[in-house]
């Protein structure tokens, strides 16, 4: 009698029956009932109320104790979880390591159900104590639980990694199972060693893991080493920037690999191709071009072209390979080969490509498409991932982020980016191009925010500089120096526009975040000085200069009223594909009653697709406003209307008598009457 019959039950009212059966005297009946419950669970019924096992926590058999702890943690009913705490506390200190390790995981489960209770009852401290446990499995589970819990509290230092803890972790590393090693290695990669000697000792103890049979262990070990390699002095033995160059044979494609493996291997082979191994690689690629899968063949042919570009000395050989392929006269092979030849840099190759194309009159339609389309030249730059993204992905080697090639917050809700920190500068080897990743990724392409209320404007400026990283779009790579321009630019804006006392306008690049935040500090002082009054209606930014009229520069803006002064706020968005520099702005002076404080100023804005704000402090007395903006492309003119509400003052409350008198004073000719139809009235606040 097999158990598969339990899958076919579908009677109603089962839960009650099952409960009775579970409490039955006879063991056999109980066993059958449990089996039914499990089958019911698989089919989708809710049987959570049937699992009560508290008194088993004190059973003499450690297996039972552990099972009880584990089952308790699976009950996700709030009322019951209060009763969990005492048994759990006992089990965390149980004499048997198996029970302790299960209890460690149970704390993580409890945190999922009720995070507050876990903190209140002090379980987090108990977990931290378990890191010092004598049994390595317990240590590994405690580390895994703490790592996951600390992901939901990103700023608190739950794990509290210090050199003593690290030592215990490294000891446990040698003794636990493969999964435990993965947990510990992943945790280590988030640790920032305080000097290079510590980094080196950690690297030494992690290196043996590289020969483990479990690939996840190896990858995690690689992650730790890659992150710490940068911190080591350059002359140490571990410095191996060119991993894998000699091992290209490992990546040769096998006939029975699944298609995604083949494509990935092809990618890797191209990146590893060099003068030394190009002959083998080309031979392999030529064989792949005779494979069955069309996509794979196309990619292989294209790969030959990329090899030609990458290893220039071998371009001749690549071309002859391509020509051989064209001889085969297979449709898609020929197409790809022609495309590749046409795109390469060498004019001789291109000519030969054209000649052979003319000889082949097989497929004139495709050939026409190929020749007439304008594709940009392939260059090796397309092989590289954008450097800031690469930095962040190194922190996530082996995890899903490296599979998707995206930072974790792109596909996980509520996650926070890991910033790769650098050693303190004391041994003085910060390279010039080594600006902190934190600010760089933070300024990566913040989308234009909805116009905030006055009080939040500060918050927005803060976001611009220090917010969490966002998705990197497909636009060309950012320059590292741009951060500083942004910081410097804002500083100068702030300095010149607002603060009456002299703040030196700095255009110099500021590599550390300190300067940017001091700029923001100035803003803070500024805010108390001018006192951004909350409240007041701010119209959303209207587009004043559309991008189509201004060759990619879009300006939108609005007027606001603060503390008796009228401000004009503008967003400059560069929608063109090129940089814009040398901005200047000028307001039409010929209008009467116009008295601006600032007429012109210049700054450097350069990034495509990014957003800059400009705040102008003006005194305006006329509704229509004409503005001229110049950048390196052209000069553009636009005008904007000042809405009336901006001209109102905040303290407009009038006495009732004064209001009535003033109303009567308005001459009758100025009165107009309208009937508002279909208006719903609410009592005004």
């Amino acid at each position, binding site marked *: 009698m*097999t*158990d*598969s019959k*339990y*899958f076919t039950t579908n009677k109603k009212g089962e839960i009650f029956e099952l409960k009775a059966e579970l409490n039955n005297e006879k063991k056999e009946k109980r*066993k059958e009932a449990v089996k039914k419950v*499990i*089958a019911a*669970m*698989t089919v989708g019924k809710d049987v959570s109320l049937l699992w009560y096992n508290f008194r088993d926590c004190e059973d003499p*058999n*450690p*297996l039972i104790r*552990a099972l009880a702890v*584990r089952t308790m*943690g699976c009950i*996700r009913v709030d009322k019951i979880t209060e009763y969990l705490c005492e048994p759990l506390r006992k089990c965390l200190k149980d004499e*048997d*390591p*198996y*029970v302790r390790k299960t209890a460690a*995981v*149970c704390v*993580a*489960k409890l945190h*999922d159900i009720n995070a507050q209770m876990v903190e209140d009852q002090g379980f987090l401290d108990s977990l931290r104590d378990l890191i010092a446990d004598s049994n*390595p*499995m317990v240590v590994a*589970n405690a580390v*895994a*639980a703490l790592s*996951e819990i600390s*992901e939901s509290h990103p700023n608190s230092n739950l794990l509290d990694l210090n050199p003593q803890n690290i030592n215990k972790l490294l000891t446990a590393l040698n*003794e*636990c*199972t*493969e*999964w435990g090693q*993965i947990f510990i290695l992943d945790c280590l990669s988030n640790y920032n060693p305080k000097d290079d000697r510590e980094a080196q000792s950690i690297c030494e103890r992690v290196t043996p893991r590289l*020969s483990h*049979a*479990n*690939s*996840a262990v190896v*990858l*995690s070990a690689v992650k730790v080493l890659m992150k710490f390699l940068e911190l080591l002095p350059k002359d140490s033995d571990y410095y191996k920037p060119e991993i894998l160059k000699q091992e290209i*044979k490992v990546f*040769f494609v096998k006939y029975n690999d699944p298609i*995604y493996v083949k494509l990935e291997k092809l990618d890797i082979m191209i990146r590893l191709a060099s003068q030394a191994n190009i002959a083998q690689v080309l031979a392999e690629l030529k*064989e792949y071009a005779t494979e069955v899968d069309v996509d794979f063949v196309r990619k292989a042919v294209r790969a030959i072209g990329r090899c030609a570009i990458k290893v220039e000395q071998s371009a001749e050989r690549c071309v002859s390979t391509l020509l051989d392929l064209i001889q085969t006269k297979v449709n898609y092979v020929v197409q790809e080969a022609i495309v590749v030849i046409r795109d390469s840099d060498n004019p001789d190759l291109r000519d030969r490509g054209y000649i052979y194309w003319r000889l082949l009159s097989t497929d004139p339609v495709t050939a026409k498409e190929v020749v007439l389309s304008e594709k940009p030249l392939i260059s090796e730059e397309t092989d590289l991932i954008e450097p800031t993204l690469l930095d962040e992905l190194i922190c*996530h080697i082996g*995890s*899903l982020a490296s*599979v*998707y090639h995206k930072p*974790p917050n792109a*596909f*996980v*809700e509520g*996650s926070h980016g890991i910033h790769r920190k650098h050693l303190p500068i004391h041994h003085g080897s910060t390279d010039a191009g080594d600006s902190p990743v934190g600010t760089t990724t933070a300024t990566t392409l913040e989308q234009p925010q909805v116009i905030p209320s006055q009080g939040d404007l500060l918050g927005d400026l803060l976001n611009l500089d220090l917010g969490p990283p966002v998705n990197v779009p497909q636009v060309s790579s950012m320059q590292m120096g741009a951060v500083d321009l942004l910081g410097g630019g804002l500083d100068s804006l702030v300095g010149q526009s607002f603060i009456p006392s002299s703040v030196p306008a700095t255009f110099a690049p500021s590599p550390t975040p300190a300067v940017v935040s001091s700029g923001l500090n100035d803003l803070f002082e500024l805010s108390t000085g001018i006192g951004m009054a909350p409240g007041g209606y701010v119209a959303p930014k209207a587009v004043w200069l559309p991008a189509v009229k201004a060759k990619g520069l879009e300006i939108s803006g609005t007027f606001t009223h603060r503390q008796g002064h009228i401000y004009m706020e503008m967003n400059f968005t560069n929608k063109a594909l090129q940089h814009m520099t040398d901005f200047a702005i000028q307001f039409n002076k010929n209008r009467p009653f116009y008295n601006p404080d600032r007429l012109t100023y210049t700054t450097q804005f350069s990034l495509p697709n990014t957003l800059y704000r400009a705040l102008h402090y003006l005194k305006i007395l006329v509704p229509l406003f004409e503005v001229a903006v110049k950048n390196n492309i052209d000069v553009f003119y636009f005008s904007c209307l000042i809405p009336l509400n901006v001209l109102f003052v905040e303290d407009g409350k009038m006495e009732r008598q004064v209001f009535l008198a003033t109303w009567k004073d308005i001459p009758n000719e100025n009165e107009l009457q309208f009937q508002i139809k279909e208006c719903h009235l609410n009592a005004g606040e």
Partner: protein
Amino acid sequence: MIGGLFIYNHKGEVLISRVYRDDIGRNAVDAFRVNVIHARQQVRSPVTNIARTSFFHVKRSNIWLAAVTKQNVNAAMVFEFLYKMCDVMAAYFGKISEENIKNNFVLIYELLDEILDFGYPQNSETGALKTFITQQGIKSQHQTKEEQSQITSQVTGQIGWRWEGIKYRRNELFLDVLESVNLLMSPQGVRYLKVFEPKLNYSDHDVIKWVRYIGRSGIYETRC
């Protein structure tokens, strides 16, 4: 960590379903079936992302094993775990097929409880597991306290595949040398010959590095 584990047959019917985390709903089961098993185009990747949930799958004959998560989990670990799960199941009941899975579903749930606690992979050594997850049910009343703690110390110990305190009269080590050769031939002759390095029989421990000497007589000599 792993949020859920599902096993489907070739039609897409779910045979085993175990959800460890709240953020994985019942619709995850269906989402995988619709988007991967019954997908019209050929599936291009073992990792699929549907509605911010990531699905890792492995196919053995006509059985699909899928792991689900919403977090940024260590992808290599998930795949290694899925392969390990297949090995453990095969060690218990032979070939992985729909019939075998249905007949042993209780055992599979017990195994999942033990080796994937709350989504964290735990000790998955077949030898150790067989001592306390047996197919006939736990005969716990008759075990003495020493035997029980022996089991737990094996499961949590440094050497998971061996009981502590075992001593043999003769200390011998048997090594199985498994070599495989990949050969690609075409009408013109041998194109490609690759010899794989031999591994130890126990697959999840550090491989001993050794050197093979082929003497003049053609006899293998091995030195570690």
